[in-house]
C-alpha cells in the first residue's frame, strides 16, 4: 500500500458552488449600484461604504475571537455583504461613529448573538439600519441631494426624499399632482437622481445587479417579483381609487428602498423562506406592509420594517409550507 486513502460516505463529488462564491456574487451584483451612488454622492459614498464594510468585518472577527472564542469565519464574505448593504441603507453623509454603532448592532447583535452566519432570524443589515433610524432620527433622515461626484463628506447639502416630500405634502393637504412637480421625473428616479439612502437610489443599477444574480442562480425570481408585483398592485388600486392623494405605482416602485429591498435584502437566504410558495407569501407580505406603512404610517418609507416583520414570520412559513413530497403516503400494515 503506497498511501492512506480517504474514506467518506457518498457522495464523493461536490458542486463548485460555495458560500463564499455566492457572497462575492452578491458583492459583484452590488457594484453597479455602488458606482451609481459614488457618481451621485461622491466621497461620502466611498467613506460610508468603506467604514461600514470594515467595521462589519472587524466586529465579526473580534466577537468570534474574544467573546465567542470560535474559529473566525470572516472570509466567508457574509460580513462584507452585510457591511455593503448596511452602507447602502444609510445616507451618504452619516457620521462614521454612527456607522460603527450600526455595524455593532448588525453583526454583533443581530448576527453573532444568534450564532453567526445562518442562525440569525432577522436580516442583520436591516436590524442595524432600523436601529440607527430610530436611535438617530435626525442624522438618519437628512438626505444629501444628488449631484455630480462630490469630495465633501459631512457637509453635503440635504433635502427630502421623494417619498418624504409625498408623505409630508399629502399630510399637509397638497394634491399628488402638484407634489409630483416637486419630485424628479420617473426617468430621473430610474437612473437614481434623487435624495435617499446611499445605495437605494439607482433602480437601473439595482435591476442590473438583480439580473446578474438571477443569471448566476444566486437568487430565484420569486421574492423580488412577488414584492414588486404586490406593491404595484396595491398602490395601483389606491391610485385608481383616488389619484389626488395616492401616487402612481411607478413612483412607488422607483422610490425609496423597494428595489434594493426586493432584490438584495428580502432575498437574503438566511432570513427568507425555503420554499417557493413560502417565498411568494413572504414577498406579498413585504409588499403589502410596505405600502401600508408608506401610505398610512408615520414613516414615509417602510421597506426595512416590512422585511423585518416578514423575517419574523419566516420560521412559521417554513414550518407550515412544505415542498411537495414525492409519493402519496400510504398506510402499511
Amino acid at each position: 500500500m503506497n498511501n492512506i486513502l480517504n474514506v467518506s460516505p457518498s457522495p464523493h463529488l461536490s458542486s463548485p458552488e460555495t458560500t463564499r462564491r455566492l457572497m462575492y456574487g452578491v458583492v459583484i451584483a452590488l457594484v453597479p449600484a455602488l458606482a451609481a451612488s459614488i457618481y451621485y454622492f461622491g466621497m461620502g459614498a466611498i467613506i460610508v461604504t468603506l467604514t461600514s464594510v470594515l467595521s462589519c468585518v472587524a466586529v465579526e472577527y473580534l466577537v468570534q475571537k474574544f467573546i465567542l472564542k470560535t474559529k473566525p469565519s470572516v472570509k466567508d464574505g457574509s460580513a462584507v455583504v452585510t457591511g455593503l448593504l448596511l452602507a447602502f441603507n444609510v445616507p451618504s453623509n452619516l457620521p462614521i461613529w454612527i456607522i460603527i454603532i450600526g455595524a455593532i448592532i448588525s453583526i454583533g447583535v443581530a448576527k453573532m448573538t444568534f450564532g453567526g452566519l445562518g442562525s440569525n432570524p432577522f436580516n442583520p443589515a436591516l436590524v442595524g439600519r432600523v436601529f440607527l433610524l430610530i436611535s438617530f432620527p435626525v442624522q438618519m433622515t437628512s438626505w444629501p441631494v444628488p449631484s455630480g461626484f462630490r469630495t465633501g463628506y459631512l457637509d453635503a447639502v440635504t433635502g427630502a426624499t421623494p417619498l418624504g416630500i409625498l408623505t409630508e405634502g399629502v399630510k399637509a393637504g397638497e394634491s399628488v399632482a402638484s407634489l409630483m412637480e416637486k419630485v424628479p421625473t420617473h426617468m430621473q428616479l430610474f437612473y437614481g437622481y434623487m435624495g435617499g439612502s446611499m445605495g437605494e437610489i439607482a433602480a437601473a443599477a439595482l435591476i442590473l445587479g438583480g439580473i446578474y444574480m438571477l443569471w448566476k442562480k444566486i437568487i430565484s425570481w420569486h421574492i423580488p417579483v412577488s414584492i414588486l408585483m404586490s406593491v404595484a398592485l396595491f398602490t395601483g388600486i389606491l391610485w385608481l381609487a383616488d389619484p389626488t392623494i395616492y401616487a402612481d405605482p411607478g413612483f412607488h416602485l422607483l422610490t425609496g428602498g423597494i428595489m434594493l429591498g426586493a432584490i438584495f435584502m428580502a432575498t437574503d437566504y438566511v432570513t427568507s423562506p425555503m420554499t417557493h410558495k413560502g417565498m411568494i407569501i413572504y414577498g406579498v407580505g413585504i409588499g403589502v406592509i410596505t405600502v401600508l406603512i408608506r401610505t398610512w404610517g408615520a414613516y414615509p418609507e417602510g421597506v426595512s420594517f416590512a422585511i423585518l416583520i416578514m423575517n419574523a414570520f419566516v420560521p412559521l412559513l417554513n414550518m407550515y409550507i412544505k415542498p411537495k413530497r414525492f409519493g402519496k403516503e400510504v398506510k402499511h400494515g
Partner: protein
Amino acid sequence: MSSTVLLTIAMLSVLGLLAAMILYFVAQKFKVVEDPRIDLVNEALPGANCGGCGYTGCRAFAEALVKSTSFEGLNCPVGGADTMGKVAVILDRQPVALEPKVAVVRCNGTPDNAARTSYYDGAMSCRIAHSLYGGTTGCHYGCFGCGDCVLACKFDAMYMDPMTELPVILDDKCVACGACVKECPRNIIELRKRNKKDRKIYVSCVNKDKGGPARKACKVACIGCGKCVKVCPYDAITMDNNLAFIDSYKCKLCRKCVPECPTGAILEIGFPVKEQKPAEPAEAITD
C-alpha cells in the same frame, strides 16, 4: 370608623368568602390527582435530566420512585447515595446500597499503537463512521475518535485527547450516568466499580479478532492468549471471543495479571509506581 372603611371591609369580606367557597368546592370536586410526594422527590433529585436513571428525565424518575415499592434497580447515578438517601427519607424506605461506578474507556489504540490505514473524512460522528466501515485502523473494534461520547456527556466529564485521539474520562467529574456508554457505537466504554483512589485494572481493548490479526492491527491489542486468566487468583478474568474481560466486582486489584500480558493490554491506573515500565501511554489518561 368612616363609612369607606366599613364598605371596604364588607366588600373584601364578601369577595374573600366567595373566593374561599369557590375554591373549597373546586378542591372537593377535584381531589388531588397527583401524589404530592412526587414534587418532593423531584426536588430532591439533581435536576440534570440526563437520563442516567433510565427514565426520560428527573420527574419521570420521581414518579417511578414514588410508585415503586422498593428501590431495587432504581438509582440516580448523578446524585448517588446522597440523593437516594434523601429520597428514602421522603418515601420512608430503606435505600439500597449501591456501589459507585465510573466510566472507563476500553481502547488504547493511539496512532502509535494502531497504525492508521485510512483517513475518515465524513461528518464528525462515530456513529456515521461506524455505519460506513470497519475502522480507520486494522482494528475493526476500537475507537473512531470522533467524540460522540464527549458530546453525550452532560457533566463535562470527558474530552478528546488530541495526542492519543481517544476520549479521556475525568474520574472526579464522572457520575456514571452511562450516557457515553449508550452513545458509543463500538461499545468501548464500560461502567465499572469505582475503587478507592480511583484505582483501576482493566483490559483496555475490545478487539475480538484472533491473536495474529489483532496484534497486526494494534500493538496493545488483547490477543486472547489467556495468560491473565490463568494467573488471576480470584477468577475475575474471563475469556470470550479472543478477548479477556476483568470483572470489576471480582477483581481485588492484586495486579498479578498486569505483568503477565504480553501486549500490555491490561492497564493499571492510580497505583503508586512500582517499576519503571517503558512507554505506557495510558498513564496519561488519569491526569
